[in-house]
């Protein structure tokens, strides 16, 4: 008989808790990392923002300072030539101008102006119309939008009371922005400076097409209506990443440990079970051999006596023939059990289910054993109600179970002198004895094949260790249950039930 390997089942059973553990752990770690990442992102975004803002502000401030210096240098005598010279020479100044109360702009003048100057006059027409109330010796700066184009214009009062000012060349600091952004971005970010409509002014690298930015920061303190989009190229800062790696390794390690430990345990259990099985098989073979040999020896002896004519009288001859009949019956039961077991092991046993009156069935089976029980010096009492209890069962299987249970009682509870068979009101078939009983720890194991409670009792009696195992398999094969319990007042009680199915 080939023992079925339950290794794959065991691995599956072990893998499930391992995976559940891993999943839970991974979930916890992911949550933790997300939190860390969010914190890191917030921290980093703030850091990047401050770096960019500082860099851009420095650029703008540099430009403003250059413009202020240049304008201040002509304030003493703001001649047109001098103003023209500012926009001609100062890279940060796009246009310089002079405005006189009552005369509006005196430089640049529309007539004879360069293209750039003409556009400048058109761009700031509202500013010039508005006038420069409150202009003082200190510079006033204002950001100015022409469509979405941002520019800065600043002015102050000159010595002669006129207003002189300058428009910054935004391209000058735009040209400085790439290096500011590149420096702020470092290796960890892609930065994109955007205008008010979300259009790209600059980016430090190709921005991910499908991914929206990790953060969009307003730069309103430095550049009104400009935003900074930020993508993180390395997903986490190093400490979070380290923690992530560590957590992953710990989880993976724990899972691997569980799997290895379980595997090792299974190997040990398997080895132990294999040894036990082989021991049991050995004892089964020797039991069965003994069981076979004992009746055979008796049969042979009796047969020899009869054939040699040693039995002088009729009574002796009858005794010999009786022995041969009984021992043949014993042999038949034994061989039947072994064959049954083989069929059950290979799941070849077919069950022929039909509606049967359990009372009739059990009574018949019990009565068939009465002579054996009484021959062993025991009393068989059969208590069965008069009303039929109909169940959908395989009649032969039920009979065999009852026979096996009685056989078990005869073998192991002979000292109790009593075997009770009854059919309970709920349809359960009960076979009980007054023997030594079965210790609690063995009550399930008695149904294992080859198992025999290893005590003096088992040692005294012979047996294959298959009877109860066969009984249980038959019960389960029909959809019923066979359990063993302690009997009130001492002894063992086997209960065969069919789940209350009353068809």
């Amino acid at each position, binding site marked *: 008989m080939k023992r079925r390997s339950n290794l794959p089942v065991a691995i599956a059973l072990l893998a499930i808790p391992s995976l559940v553990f891993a999943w839970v752990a991974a979930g916890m770690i992911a949550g933790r990392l997300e939190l860390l990442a969010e914190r890191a992102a917030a921290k980093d975004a703030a850091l990047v923002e401050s770096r960019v803002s500082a860099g851009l502000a420095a650029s703008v401030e540099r430009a403003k300072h250059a413009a202020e210096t240049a304008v201040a240098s002509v304030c003493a005598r703001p001649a047109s*030539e001098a103003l023209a010279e500012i926009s001609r020479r100062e890279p940060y100044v796009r246009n310089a101008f002079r405005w006189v109360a009552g005369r509006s702009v005196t430089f640049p003048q529309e007539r004879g102006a360069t293209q750039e100057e003409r556009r400048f006059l058109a761009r700031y027409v509202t500013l010039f119309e508005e006038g420069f109330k409150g202009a003082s010796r200190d510079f006033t700066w204002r950001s100015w939008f022409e469509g979405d184009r941002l520019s800065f214009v600043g002015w102050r009062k000159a010595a002669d009371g006129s207003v002189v000012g300058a428009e910054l060349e935004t391209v000058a600091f735009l040209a400085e922005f790439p290096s500011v952004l590149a420096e702020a971005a470092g290796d960890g970010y892609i930065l994109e400076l955007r205008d008010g409509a979300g259009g790209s002014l*600059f980016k430090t690298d190709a921005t991910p097409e499908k991914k929206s930015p990790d953060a969009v920061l307003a730069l309103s303190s430095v550049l009104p209506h400009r935003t900074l989009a930020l993508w993180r190229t390395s997903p986490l800062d190093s400490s979070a990443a380290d923690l992530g790696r560590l957590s992953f390794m710990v989880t993976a390690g724990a899972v691997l440990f569980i799997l290895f430990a379980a595997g090792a345990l299974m190997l040990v259990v398997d080895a132990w079970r294999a040894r036990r099985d082989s021991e049991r098989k050995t004892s089964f073979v020797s039991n069965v051999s003994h069981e076979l040999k004992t009746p055979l020896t008796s049969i042979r002896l009796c047969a020899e006596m009869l054939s040699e004519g040693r039995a002088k009288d009729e009574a002796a001859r009858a005794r010999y023939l009786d022995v041969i009949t009984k021992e043949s019956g014993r042999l038949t039961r034994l061989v039947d059990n072994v064959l049954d077991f083989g069929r059950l092991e290979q799941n070849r046993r077919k069950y022929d289910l039909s509606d049967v009156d359990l009372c009739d069935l059990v009574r018949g089976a019990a009565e068939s054993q009465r002579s054996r029980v009484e021959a062993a010096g025991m009393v068989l009492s059969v208590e069965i109600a008069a009303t039929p209890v109909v169940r959908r069962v395989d009649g032969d299987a039920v009979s065999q179970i009852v026979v096996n249970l009685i056989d078990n009682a005869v073998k192991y509870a002979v000292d109790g002198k009593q075997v009770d068979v009854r059919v309970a009101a709920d349809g359960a078939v009960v076979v009980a004895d007054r023997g030594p009983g079965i210790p609690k720890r063995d009550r399930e194991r008695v149904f294992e094949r080859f198992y025999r409670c290893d005590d003096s009792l088992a040692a005294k009696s012979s047996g294959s260790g298959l009877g109860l195992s066969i009984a249980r398999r038959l019960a389960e094969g029909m959809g019923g249950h066979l359990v063993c319990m302690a009997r009130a007042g001492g002894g063992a009680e086997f209960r065969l039930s069919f789940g209350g199915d009353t068809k």
Partner: protein
Amino acid sequence: MKTETIKAVAAALALAAFGTATADVSCRVEPDYSVRLADKAGDAYVKVTLAADRVVAANRPSVNLAIVLDRSGSMRGDKIVKAREAACEAIRRLDAKDIVSVVAYDNKSEVIIPAQYVTEKEALIARISSIEPRGCTALFDGVSAGATELRKFKGKCEISRVLLLSDGQANVGPSSPDELGRYGALLMKDGIAVSTIGLGVDYNEDLMTRLSQKSDGNSYFVENSNDLPRVFARELGDVLSVAATKVALKVRFCGGFVPVALIGRDGRIMDGVVTIDLNQLYGGQEKYVIVKCDAAPAPAGSAREIAKAEISYVDPKDESSRTVTAVGTVSYSLDSAAVAASVNKGVVRERALNENAMRTEEALRRADRGDYAAARELIMMNHVNSMQVQGAIGVDAKLQADAEMQMSNSMKMSRDSYDSRERKKMKTSSFQLFNQQKLK
């Protein structure tokens, strides 16, 4: 008497010094007609010309060159090969006194060769071969990285130049012709000129020419990448022959002549003074401005000064600031035949060509909007103008060639034939005329 002698000697010395200066850069002020009809007000066109002698190779100033190469994905294949070849060729032409840097740009700029003296040419050339195409076109970033490299050696070289190659539209960073033009103007304030080479038919010629124009660099349209090495060589020839830098022209008009407009060039007219800034003048090159004036009537037989031109510039050979001046005069007569005979063909011709180029720009704007009929009409006016001017001044080879070109261009002003290639040719050619780019 003694002091008189000293004064005379000093004057002679001053003149001598002045004389050596004028040997390199000279200036002329020429009216379209040197004899004007007396007692009649009218328009006068005055051409102020700056010219530089050829520069002797051994005596050339040192050059700080930033080569800015487009390495966007569209440069794949032969284009990048030829561009690398051209850049290598440019480096071979430089000497140890020159500085070179190479910037390649795609999504962003990358400095391939930081600004350094050209001492180990082969090592520099080897680094250029690592430039492979990829990504987008961050043109602005590329140019500003090139300018940053140039500034590292500010003051060490007499001439600073960005040589920009692009075959595509600027699609990262500031990308309007206006912004690039302003950036060009800004670089010019720093003494940096940007020469642009547009390769193929997909680049943005408005942007490239504006960048060149505002920084006083050259602009080229190269249709076939095989021509790149030749164009680089020509550009480098220009760069190596710069005869004057930080050129500022100031033309002070005399009473009776009021400047009202500049033909072809942008500049400022303020209180009767025309001021124009140029970045540099190449050896053997002439640059000019044509000023339209309101001329007051004057009696017959009288003569007047029209304007006094003053060119201040820096001589790159020794970093000295110099000035040359010139005066233009006109006389008045009642004899209209004498007036007609006094025509300065060169002035009239250049005025006509510049006016044509301005009309061509307007025609391109109309054609861009799909108004081909108006565009064709403007181009035909150019043709007519060139023919009519020849009727006034006699047959002129340049005007004849222009008339023919205008005729052929007018044919192209239709939905079917107006394409990127034709537009680039026209745009580049009008740019080259406005800027008096040297064409060999």
